[in-house]
Structures are given as structure tokens and as C-alpha cells.
């Protein structure tokens, strides 16, 4: 049951989405909406973007079967028969973010914009945007929370090497939320010739639709690949959800396949009963943040609360509006993994598959047993699972090494 933005209520997924922005941005969002129609949906753009995806990003990304991991989790194959990974970590720059960034920067260029700005949490979207801007020769400035600048240092260096200017944001929780506040303020000020390249399927209309559309390539490829390899559809698709761009990308490929369960895994941080988590769909309430109505983490007075996750990319108190709608309709189910579960999963995946997943991606890895157990309760027999391996963990080495030392 897909709920696209309807023409009578543009930019809405059920009651979620919309455009909750300062008046200054309304005309710019109108301009962008028109450009999505006239440029992104045009043959020329599609040809150039698809060509870049194939010959620059390295698409299609492989579908790897993770047999050793599956047996490590479920030695007797009672729950999981086969486990497949959609290898977005093998994309150029190390995560799915490049699919969207190349699309949006190409769009910015065609719209005649002179400058691109972006927010970043883990730095993957910042790196992807800086990469696309280097390729297209567009000046680029990236807002990043000061806390994230510290914990994702390698990505900060990469952005600088690509010629982008990284601006450390010292307001509030000094993470993704505050980086996005600063990027919006920049856009309000320089709206005429600046393009704001949002990295997640969040923000005001048309961003959630645009980002989802540019990430749907993940789901389209994965669906064809798994049918080719197994002769059928998986029982469930699992992905991490911060803002939710990789999840919506892979979900959209399977939205109409009602036999396929969709699972989003949020960051439970130090636990859902603590105040230190980022499980917006699981523990949040309906609210408005950064331009759209969705679930948010906020107090009874409507003040946005600080999120926490060991993974910078999931450390966000909001979530894309389409996920809010998928949750309410029941088409997708949202669960969560703690910091410790994610760190342990990263280690296990590395040792059994020789793949070092990003800490974001480690969250769904940590919940495979839970997903398979839930599925078994509905229908007996071991299941085929598909996991979106959204990014690689090179950027998280320091956090992973520290966790290893603490365990030792």
C-alpha cells in the first residue's frame, strides 16, 4: 500500500509531510518542485544520472549472500534460511548517499544554481555532496555538528580534500539536528542562487519525495537481483532508519509486494527507557521539525529533545514523513537496536563476512534474529532476509576500536 503524494494534497503522505518553513523558502520550494518535474523526470537528466550511477558510482551494487553470518546467528537454519546483503557500502564514497547527492547536484547545476550547501551527520552525505560538487565544479559548504566533526574525523578530512568547506556547528546538541538548523538558516539567507542538498528523505516537500525517488534505485536493483538469485521474493527487507533515506530507497522496490515484510531499525542508543536514544518512530510523537510533519522526539511543551546514538547518521530526533505513514498504515514495522547491540553486530559481521559495516548499518544487522523470530510467529519455516548494507564502517574505526578496548 504505497501512499504517494497526492495531487489534491501535494507533498503529503497521509497526514505527514507538507511544508512547514519560513515564507522566504516557499517560492524556492515551488521552484524546486517544478524543476523535479521538468528536469529530474526528463530523459536528458535520467540518462546523465543513470550513466553516472553505472560508470562513476559503480552500480548496480552487488547482492552478496552472507552465509557465514546467517549460520553464526542461526546455526541450524531454523529461522533464517538465506541472508542477502544489498551492498551500498560498495558505492563510490562508501554509502548509498552518493545516489542522491549526484542526482541533486546535477539538478542544481541544471537549475543554474551557483553554490551547494548540505548538512551531514556521519559525514557520508557531506562526503557524497562534496564529491558531486568536485565532479560538477560547484562551490560547496557542508554544515556538520561539532560533536560529529570529532567522532567522524576521517570524513571531515575527505570533504576538505574534495574542496568543500566544512562548517562546525556549535549550537545545541552539536549534531545532525543543529547542522540542519544552520543549513536552513544559510538557505533562507542565500536562497536565490544556493541549492540546499538534503541528504535524508526528510525536510519540506518536495525533498522527501525527491530523495526517495533518487534512492529507489536500491530497491529496484535489489528486487531484480534477489529474484534472479533465489527465484522469488525475500520474506523481509531490513534497513536502518535515521532520517530514513536508504530504508525508503529499498522499501520502495518492494512496496507493492505484500508478502514482503518491511522492517526499519532505529537507534535505541543507551536504551528505549533512557533519555539517550534516537528511536523517533518507536518513542516519539507527531510533530513538526525541519519543514515537515512526522514523528519527532520532543517534550510535552513541544521542545525538540536531543537524540543520542553511537552512530552519528542515526543521531537525529526526526524521521522522514513517508516512514511515519508506513508506520501508521502498518506497511512497515519499526524496531530498534542499542549502541551495544550495534557495536557487537559490527564486530560479528566483520569476522564472519569480511565486511565492516557502518555503525548505522550495524543496527539492522543486530536485529536479524528478532525479525526472523517475528516472521516465524506468523508463518512457519526458515526465512529469506534481505538487508540493506547502506554504508561501510571505515569512518567508524575509532569508535569500534575504543569499544573493542573497553570489552577487552
Amino acid at each position, binding site marked *: 500500500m504505497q501512499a504517494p503524494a497526492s495531487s489534491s494534497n501535494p507533498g503529503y503522505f497521509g497526514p505527514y509531510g*507538507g*511544508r*512547514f*518553513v*519560513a*515564507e*522566504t*523558502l*516557499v*517560492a*524556492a520550494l*515551488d521552484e524546486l518542485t517544478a524543476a523535479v518535474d521538468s528536469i529530474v523526470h526528463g530523459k536528458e537528466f535520467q540518462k546523465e544520472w543513470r550513466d553516472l550511477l553505472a560508470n562513476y558510482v559503480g552500480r548496480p551494487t552487488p547482492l552478496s549472500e552472507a552465509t557465514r553470518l546467517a549460520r553464526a546467528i542461526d546455526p541450524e537454519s531454523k529461522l533464517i534460511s538465506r541472508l542477502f546483503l544489498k551492498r551500498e557500502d560498495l558505492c563510490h564514497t562508501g554509502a548509498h548517499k552518493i545516489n542522491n547527492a549526484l542526482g541533486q547536484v546535477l539538478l542544481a547545476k541544471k537549475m543554474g544554481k551557483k553554490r551547494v550547501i548540505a548538512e551531514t551527520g556521519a559525514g557520508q552525505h557531506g562526503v557524497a555532496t562534496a564529491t558531486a560538487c568536485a565532479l560538477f565544479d560547484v562551490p560547496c559548504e557542508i554544515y556538520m555538528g561539532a560533536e560529529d566533526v570529532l567522532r567522524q574525523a576521517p570524513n571531515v578530512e575527505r570533504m576538505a580534500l574534495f574542496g568543500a568547506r566544512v562548517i562546525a556547528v556549535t*549550537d*545545541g546538541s552539536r549534531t545532525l*539536528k543543529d547542522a540542519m*538548523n544552520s543549513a*536552513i*538558516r544559510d538557505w*533562507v*539567507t*542565500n*536562497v*536565490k542562487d544556493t541549492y540546499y542538498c538534503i541528504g535524508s528523505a526528510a525536510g519540506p516537500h518536495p525533498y522527501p519525495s525527491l530523495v526517495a525517488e533518487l534512492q529507489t534505485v536500491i530497491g529496484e536493483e535489489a528486487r531484480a537481483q534477489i529474484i534472479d538469485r533465489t527465484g522469488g521474493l525475500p520474506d523481509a527487507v531490513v534497513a536502518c532508519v535515521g532520517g530514513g533515506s536508504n530504508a525508503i530507497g529499498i522499501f520502495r522496490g518492494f512496496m507493492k509486494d505484500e508478502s514482503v515484510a518491511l522492517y526499519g531499525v532505529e537507534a535505541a542508543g543507551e536504551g528505549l527507557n533512557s533519555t539517550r536514544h534516537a528511536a523517533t518512530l518507536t518513542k516519539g*510523537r*507527531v*510533530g*513538526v*521539525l*525541519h*519543514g515537515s*510533519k512526522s514523528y*519527532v522526539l*520532543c517534550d*510535552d*511543551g*513541544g*521542545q*525538540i529533545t536531543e537524540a543520542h546514538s553511537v552512530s552519528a547518521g542515526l543521531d537525529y530526533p526526526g524521521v522522514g514523513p513517508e516512514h511515519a505513514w508506513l508506520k501508521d498504515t502498518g506497511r512497515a514495522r519499526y524496531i530498534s537496536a542499542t549502541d551495544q547491540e550495534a557495536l557487537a553486530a559490527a564486530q560479528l559481521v566483520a569476522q564472519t563476512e569480511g565486511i565492516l559495516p557502518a555503525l548505522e548499518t550495524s543496527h539492522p544487522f543486530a536485529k536479524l534474529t528478532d525479525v526472523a523470530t517475528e516472521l516465524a510467529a506468523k508463518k512457519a519455516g526458515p526465512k529469506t532476509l534481505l538487508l540493506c548494507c547502506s554504508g561501510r564502517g571505515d569512518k567508524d574505526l575509532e569508535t569500534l576500536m575504543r569499544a573493542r578496548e573497553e570489552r577487552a
Partner: protein
Amino acid sequence: MPFSDPTADGPAIARASQRAIQAGGGLDATLRAAKEIRAQSAAPIILFGYYNPILVRGEAKTVDDAAASGVDGLLVVDLPLDEGVELRTRAATHDMPIIPLVTPATLPSRLDQIRALDRKKIGFVYYVSVTGVTGAANANLNKAATAAAAVRAAVNAPVVIGFGVDGPEKARAAATGADGVVIGTAIVRRVENADSLDDGIAEVSSFLGEIRGALGPNG
């Protein structure tokens, strides 16, 4: 109405919001303050803020309580015309306007939209002098006054100018094309820099005296 993530505001008002929230401020406290002020003064009160606290508290409850507290209007920065239908409709039952904003980037078609609304629902139009956040140092108020006068004619409602009005000169320039002038950041900065409450009140009173002087007998 303080909000944790005021994306249309510059650093001074953003810091003021943080101070207010840390001191226990929020929508409830703002409404209580309005009620106390209303008990002592007949001056019109317009509350300015962001949508999430209103949505979480409940649109109807917020509007009803605001009316009962003597509030005369609301300005919700991140609630543009199209998203504000429910709040405007509820507010209209109290004859309470939801003030629309118009900026240099606003298209003429939106002015028609505002003109078509019942005057009671909008009260007046807030013309934003710059494309930018509050506290902009580079606002050209002469240019804004010309634009605001054109907006006033187009929407057939009173217009006030705000953003970047930091002293008597800019206030005077703005007033040439508008029915009122909004001063936010310049006041908030004086409060922030004050050594004590009394010092802050004295600073702000003297500053507003200068502004009134510059605006002439009707200031």
C-alpha cells in the same frame, strides 16, 4: 514563544530561546505572562514563535487559551498560508488574526491569496525586509519600505516591517512605507547584555524612547 530549533532566527534570538527554555520557559509560561501583562496593560499582544509547541499542545487549546489570556494575534514563523488553515479557522472564532509574512521572495500570486482572506483572519501583514534570518546587519530598509508599500496596496491590509531594524535611523526608513515597525533582535541583545533586570528594563526603555522619537508624534 521560545522554540528549541528556531530556523528563521539569527543567533541572538536563538540564544534567547535557549535561555528561556533552560529557565523553564515555553508556551505555557508565555501564555501565563501574557495574562499577567493583560491584567496591567491594554497594549496589544502578539505572540511570535514556531509551530511544534502549538501542535503538540493542541491547536484549538492553544488558540482558546491565548484568547482567554488576552492575546490579540499569533505569528507562527514556520506555518505558511497553506499549512495554517486549521489554526486560522480556530483563531477566527475568537477574532484572533494569524499574521501572515511576506518576504522579498514572495510571489505575487501569494499576495492575491492573502488579499482573498478575511481581514479579521490576518490583522496585518509582516513584511520581512531581507531574505535572511532575524538580526541581519545588512538590511536595506529604504528598499524594504518601497516594497512594503506595494504589498500594502496589493493585499489591502496594514503592513509592518521587521528584520534588521536595529536603531532609530532604520526604524525611520522602514516607517516611510509601513504602518508599523518590528524590533526584535535589537531588544533581545540589550536584555542579553544587561547586568540586571532593572538595568535591562532601563536599557530597553531608553532604546525604545529613541525609536519613538525618530518615528515622530505617532511613534
